[in-house]
């Protein structure tokens, strides 16, 4: 484009050069025969790869000759002024006409020089701006790291030693919302989840050794006609299968990975601790996230207590009517917050179970990038089950416009495979904008009214 409006400026592309294309386009005119060989037996790359180099070389030798006769070539002065590596546009070089052509009139040359300088100035400005942007990003990252560091200090030195008195204070809650620094995350989660079940490290060890006994007494092969009906018995098989399918991309929970045995231990111990619940899919993801932040025994304690929360119990026992109660309560707030999208979902028969089952069972650890999921967990530990549904509404709010333009299957696909890159700050702003009150009723009130109407009972916290 630039070339067309300004003749006699040769380009030197420092980075990727579109030269090859241009040469290819010109070929039929310049050398008809070899051009056809592109489709023949000649390796197609050879021609266009060689030519640009040759042409460039020719240009360079020519321009050095021309440069020698023309000491006012701006090339050097431009180079001197650049205090950063030039990008393609600033590497534009003003050249005189090749020697075999008549020289430009002075007026035209002047005009071209002026245009050239304007272009270079603009490009420089753009590059400077980009450099500033990069610097800003770096500064932001440093600032973020610093703030994480200072937040970690605050958590370690002020909040954690005075947990019970401080955990409900406004200041701590605000700090909490911004995300718990990874170094103290596990401790805060443990404290927030609590240990209502009074599980000790000893109890964990007992459960674990019982699980190991079961594993070593190699399970008798399941009789064929019995298969499928003995899900709880085959928990062990299922655990094995699921461990390899838990965060496979991290490559740490799989066979031979550093946390494989830990994950196996926690899930196995849990089936001995709560044989009535056993292993249910989704648990492996929750245990894995805890393992990433806590020591084995503490992870187990947090795991068992977390699953003991009313919402988690309802889901992991697959208590269908209770799950429907949760979905119904969710829909009350959905309609309240996003009436347009709610109507669109209704019209398309997109029921909440389609996306909420995955999100609630794994506490978002499967559907969100891990760092975002951990931030959701942070506030879930602070606010309880309500936050899981608020997060769902935040996601729907964030993607409201995209979703409104989709039909059933595309919405279902979108919600069960969320984008890889979710803008975290924006996402949390959307969560913050979700109102968790409907006609002056809070989440718990809506849930319990629904439960009463449906004749189910939701255990209170």
């Amino acid at each position, binding site marked *: 484009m630039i070339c067309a409006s300004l003749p006699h400026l040769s380009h030197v592309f420092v980075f990727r050069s579109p030269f090859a294309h241009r040469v290819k386009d010109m070929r039929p005119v310049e050398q008809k025969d070899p051009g056809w060989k592109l489709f023949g037996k000649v390796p197609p790359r050879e021609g266009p790869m060689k030519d640009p180099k040759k042409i460039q070389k020719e240009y360079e030798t020519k321009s050095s000759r021309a440069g020698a006769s023309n000491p006012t070539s701006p090339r050097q002065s431009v180079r001197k002024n650049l205090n950063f590596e030039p990008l393609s546009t600033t590497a534009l070089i003003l050249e005189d006409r090749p020697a075999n052509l008549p020289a430009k009139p002075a007026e035209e040359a002047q005009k071209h020089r002026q245009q050239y300088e304007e272009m270079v100035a603009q490009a420089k400005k753009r590059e400077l701006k980009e450099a500033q942007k990069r610097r800003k990003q770096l500064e932001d990252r440093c600032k973020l790291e610093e703030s994480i560091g200072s937040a970690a200090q605050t958590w370690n030195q002020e909040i954690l030693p005075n947990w019970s008195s401080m955990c409900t204070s406004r200041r701590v809650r605000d700090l909490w919302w911004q995300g718990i620094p990874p170094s103290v995350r596990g401790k805060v989660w443990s404290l927030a989840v609590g240990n209502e079940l009074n599980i000790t490290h000893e109890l964990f060890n007992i459960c674990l050794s019982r699980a190991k006994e079961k594993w070593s007494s190699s399970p008798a092969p*399941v009789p*064929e*006609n019995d*298969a*499928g*009906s003995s*899900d709880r018995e085959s928990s062990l098989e*299922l655990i094995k*299968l*699921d461990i390899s*399918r*838990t*965060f*496979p*991309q991290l490559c740490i929970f799989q066979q031979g990975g550093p946390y494989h045995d830990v994950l196996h231990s926690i899930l196995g111990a849990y089936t001995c601790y709560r044989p009535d619940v056993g292993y*249910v*899919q*989704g648990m*492996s*993801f929750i245990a894995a996230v805890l393992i990433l932040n806590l020591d084995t025994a503490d992870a187990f304690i947090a795991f068992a207590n977390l699953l003991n929360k009313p919402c988690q119990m309802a889901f992991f026992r*697959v208590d*269908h009517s209770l*799950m429907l109660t949760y979905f119904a309560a969710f829909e009350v707030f959905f309609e309240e917050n996003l009436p347009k999208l709610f109507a669109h979902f209704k019209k398309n*028969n997109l*029921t909440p*179970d*389609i*996306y909420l*089952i*995955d999100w609630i*069972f*794994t506490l978002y650890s*499967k559907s969100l990038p891990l760092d975002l999921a951990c931030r959701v967990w942070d506030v879930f530990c602070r606010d309880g089950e309500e936050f899981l549904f608020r997060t769902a509404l935040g996601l729907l709010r964030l993607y409201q416009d995209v979703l409104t333009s989709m039909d059933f*299957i*595309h919405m*279902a*696909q979108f919600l*069960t*495979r969320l984008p890889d890159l979710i803008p975290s700050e924006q996402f949390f702003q959307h969560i913050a904008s979700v109102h968790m009150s409907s006609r002056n009723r809070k989440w718990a009130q809506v849930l319990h009214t629904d439960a009463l109407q449906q004749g189910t009972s939701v255990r209170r916290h």
Partner: protein
Amino acid sequence: MDTSVSLIQEKEPAIIKIIIIGNSGVGKSSFMNRYVNHRFTNLYRATIGMDFLSKSETLDGESVTVQIWDTAGTERFQSLGSPLYRGTHCCMLVFDVTSKISFSALEQWRKEFLIQGEPKNPDTFPFVVLGNKTDLPDREVSSRRARQWCERFGAEYFEGSAKDDIDVEKTFLRAAHMGLQQYKKHTLENTGHFQITCKQPRETGNNCQC
């Protein structure tokens, strides 16, 4: 504007809903992904609840949208089935040819589907049975045995491998085809009287999806 809208609606492709069920780990998601995205990876995550993909196909010159509902394979999640199973046009029962258990579980999966999905024609409802993982050496279920079981209730049998991309497309195309027959039959059965009064069979068919 109204006429143009109705014209577009009439041209909209039929939506064929295929549901994939079978034990955990037999490769339901892998098979679906191979068909739609032409990809296979060992890094699959367990499916929790449901997973969805769709693909446009042309069957006998008719364009259709194949909607695939991929389910979690654990028995515990089966109780969630009913709303998910309803409105299915073809059910794909998947087992792993290296696991007898996954094969013998099909009986239960099939029953469960018929109870919860409540198809109008349980005796003639189209089932496709698929034996996956034929790339593996330690086979436990022979083709003959699988075929015999299928004959008992008129299911069509296929086997192949999502990993090596063997007969994946063929299986899905057959399932979509059977689904389209079911879709048409379903449409005709329910909207026969509409066809006499107003000639919009396709549109009423779409309403039946709900």
